[in-house]
């Protein structure tokens, strides 16, 4: 119990680090995933190939390898950025592949007639996608996007092992300070539970408001 009260600022810093990492990486993953999903359904062949390669490669890459390549490899390449930014990049790109697949399956749930109606009104591809199909697709993918983002929050723990300020990383300092290691881990676990439960609560509310009744 004392571990938390005596090291509140340390835990707080780690907790905020995880939250920040999760928020930024989620934003990147959503943007990239949306981009790749629209590539994968585009009528132009090369876009589709690009989207497919992106998803296939990233889905089959171990996240640790990606972190290794980005955090330790890219600096050798001449690209030097703060570690936290690198971690956001790795996490965001990795998760974008899963977001893309979720969105794509959401697009497939929209009935064909919707698109046909939009086209008969004279809308082009961009207009059909953004004003007719995606809003409907979005409603049916709220739960799977939620669990993808929960997975992202959990995966952000790997960043801590690559010395990015983050919740799991706090165990090291606490260990050196000689605190009970089991209690330190219990509070770390509680921290992660708070984050994942918050995400799932937010998505539950969103689903109640906008989700498709089945």
């Amino acid at each position, binding site marked *: 119990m004392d571990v938390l009260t005596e090291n509140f600022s340390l835990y707080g810093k780690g907790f905020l680090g995880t939250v920040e990492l999760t928020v930024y990486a989620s934003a990147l993953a959503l943007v990239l995933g949306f981009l790749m999903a629209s590539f994968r359904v585009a009528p132009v062949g090369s876009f589709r190939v690009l989207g497919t390669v992106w998803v296939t490669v990233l889905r089959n890459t171990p996240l640790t*390898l990606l972190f290794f390549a980005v955090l330790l490899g890219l600096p*050798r390449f001449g690209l030097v950025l703060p570690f936290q930014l690198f971690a956001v990049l790795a996490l965001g790109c990795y998760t974008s592949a899963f977001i893309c697949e979720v969105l794509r399956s959401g697009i*497939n749930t929209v009935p064909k007639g919707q698109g046909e109606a939009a086209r008969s009104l004279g809308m082009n591809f961009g207009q059909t996608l953004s004003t007719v199909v995606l809003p409907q697709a979005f409603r049916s993918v709220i739960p799977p996007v939620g669990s993808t983002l929960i997975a992202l929050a*959990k995966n952000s723990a790997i960043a801590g092992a690559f010395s990015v300020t983050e919740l799991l990383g706090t165990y090291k300092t606490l260990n050196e300070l000689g605190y009970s290691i089991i209690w330190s881990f219990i509070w770390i676990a509680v921290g992660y539970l708070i984050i994942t439960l918050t995400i799932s609560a937010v998505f539950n509310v969103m689903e109640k408001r906008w989700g498709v009744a089945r």
Partner: protein
Amino acid sequence: MTKTLTRKPSRASAPEATALYDIPGPVTRRRHLMYGIASTVLIVALFGWIVHLLFDTDQFTAQKWTPFEYKGIQELLLRGLGNTLKAFAYAAVLSLALGAVLAVGRLSEHRVLRWISTLLVEFFRAMPVLVMIFFIFVALKVQPLPALVAGLTLYNGSVLAEVFRTGINSVDRGQREAAYALGMRKTQVTTFVLAPQAVRAMLPTIISQLVVALKDTSLGYLITYEEFLHAGKLIASNLDYDLPFIPVVMVISPIYIGMCMLLSWFATWVAKRQRRNLKTRAVGVAPAEPGTLLPGGQ
């Protein structure tokens, strides 16, 4: 009668008509070809720029690639790969076993057993795998390999438990009723009637979950287990060869990604084969497509 009239949608080189666009006509096809060429040029240019950057930062100098010529270093990499596969094999077998046990627990008629296994499944699915591995490694002071295997087993075992459970629940009710009518006991019904059909229907999802386990063996690198990535790191941080980080990444990633891809293709292949198989179709288990491949995806 109507069956002969409905034709399958033709599979042209362009994708089938979606909600998004009509099947393109000649003018649009020409326009799309132009877009295609333009974007391909752009992508190739980007790729060329990256290769240029690689040359510019001396990533292709002989010195950085020499380590891969030495037998000792090749053996180091192979040993790492062997250790990765070893951890995967242990984790796969144990998590299948744990999954079976937890699934049986969740389906049990005894309330206490059901509660305990539900609690375990929910907790281990909610925790980051790495936190569990670190807890076992640091707090319980276990050796790297058992710690890694235990962490992976707890996590993937609880995910697999849910897979098994949904599989068993989705077997047609009539199967269970017929088995009870023959006078079988619950254990017999589960082991001889339900489980074989459930496993068969859920095989693609099970294999996809094993891909997650294979991917996650790389977490062993973080607790100093001497697996593939660890071997790569050893070579990469060698000053004698001018810190060949990029070459190591270029050698290691295709092997890692290739292994995972093979296993996921296997899952897709099994799924496709099942869709053609009458026996599994009769079971009528709905969505047994390969899962999300996502650590933590539910």
